[in-house]
C-alpha cells in the first residue's frame, strides 16, 4: 500500500487548478483586446478536467482513487461582441470593432473557485504530510 499516492492526487489537483487559474488570467488580460476581424478576435479559453482512475490492473483497491488531468483547453465558440467604434484604428469598413467573448464576471467567479480548490489541495497535502511524519515517529519516545 503506497500512502504516497495522496501526494500525487493532491498534486494533480493543484496543477489542474493552476492551469485553470492561468486560463482565467489569460481571459481577463485579453478581455479588452479588440480586433477588426471577427474571426481573428481572442476567444475565451477554459480547461477540460478529467478524472484518471488508478490504473494498476488486477488490484481492486487501487481503482478507487482518482487523479485529475487536464485533457485540453477548449475555446468558447460564442460570437464575439460587436462594438461600434469608428474612431478606433482597428475598426472595419462599417466602423465596428470586435471584442472577445470573455464574460468578466464569470471569469472572476471561476478564479475564486479555482483558488479555493487549490487551497483545499494544499490543505490536504499539509495534513497528509503531518500525518506521515507522525507515523514515521511511531514507536519512538
Amino acid at each position, binding site marked *: *500500500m503506497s*500512502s504516497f*499516492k*495522496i501526494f500525487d*492526487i*493532491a498534486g*494533480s*489537483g493543484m496543477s*489542474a*487548478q493552476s492551469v*485553470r487559474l492561468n486560463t482565467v488570467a489569460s481571459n481577463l488580460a485579453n478581455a479588452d483586446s479588440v480586433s477588426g476581424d471577427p474571426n481573428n478576435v481572442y476567444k475565451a479559453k477554459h480547461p477540460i*478536467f*478529467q*478524472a484518471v*482512475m488508478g490504473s494498476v490492473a*488486477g*488490484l*481492486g*483497491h487501487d*481503482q*478507487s*482513487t*482518482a*487523479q*485529475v488531468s487536464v485533457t485540453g483547453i477548449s475555446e468558447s465558440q460564442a460570437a464575439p461582441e460587436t462594438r461600434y467604434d469608428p474612431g478606433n484604428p482597428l475598426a472595419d469598413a462599417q466602423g465596428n470593432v470586435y471584442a472577445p467573448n470573455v464574460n468578466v464576471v464569470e471569469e472572476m467567479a471561476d478564479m475564486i*473557485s*479555482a483558488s*479555493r*480548490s487549490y487551497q*483545499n*489541495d494544499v*490543505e*490536504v497535502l499539509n*495534513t*497528509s504530510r503531518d*500525518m506521515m511524519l*507522525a*507515523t514515521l515517529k*511511531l*514507536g519512538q519516545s
Partner: protein
Amino acid sequence: MRTSLDNYLGIHPQALQLEAKRNELLAANLANVDTPNYKARDIDFKAALSAASGESNAASSGGSSALTLRNTESSAAGTAAAGGVSATGTGASDGDIDSSTVKYRVPMASALDGNTVDEQLEQSAFAENSVRYQASLQFINSALRDLMTAITGS
C-alpha cells in the same frame, strides 16, 4: 495468522490502515471537486473495519452510520451518466480494503455537470478522518510504550 503482538495492539493497526485509505479517497474527492461527471466516493468505515478485523457482524454494517452511502451496483444502475466508473476489484487480502466497501456518496444537491463532490462535506470528513488517524497512532504508540516499559522495567 495473527501474532500475539497484533493481538496486543488490538484493532488499531487495521483502523490506521483503513483511515489512511479513506484519507486517500477523500483527497481524491477534493482534487476532483471541479471535474465533470466525477462521482464522490467514501468508505463505509464500520463495515470495512469489521471486515478487516474479521468480526463481520451483519448487524453492525447498517443502521447508525452517519454517512449516507449507496451501494456501487445500485449507483451504476441508477445514474446513466457517462462517468464510466466501475469498481471491479478482486483479491483483497487480509487487512486490505475490500472494494465492495468503497461506495458512492448520495449527493444532497446534484450539479449540472454530473459532479457529486460536496466540498464542505469532504473537507469536514477529511478533517475528522485525520484526527481519527492521529488517535489510532496515539493508541498504538502508547501500547508500544507500555510494552517497552514492561520489557525494560524502568
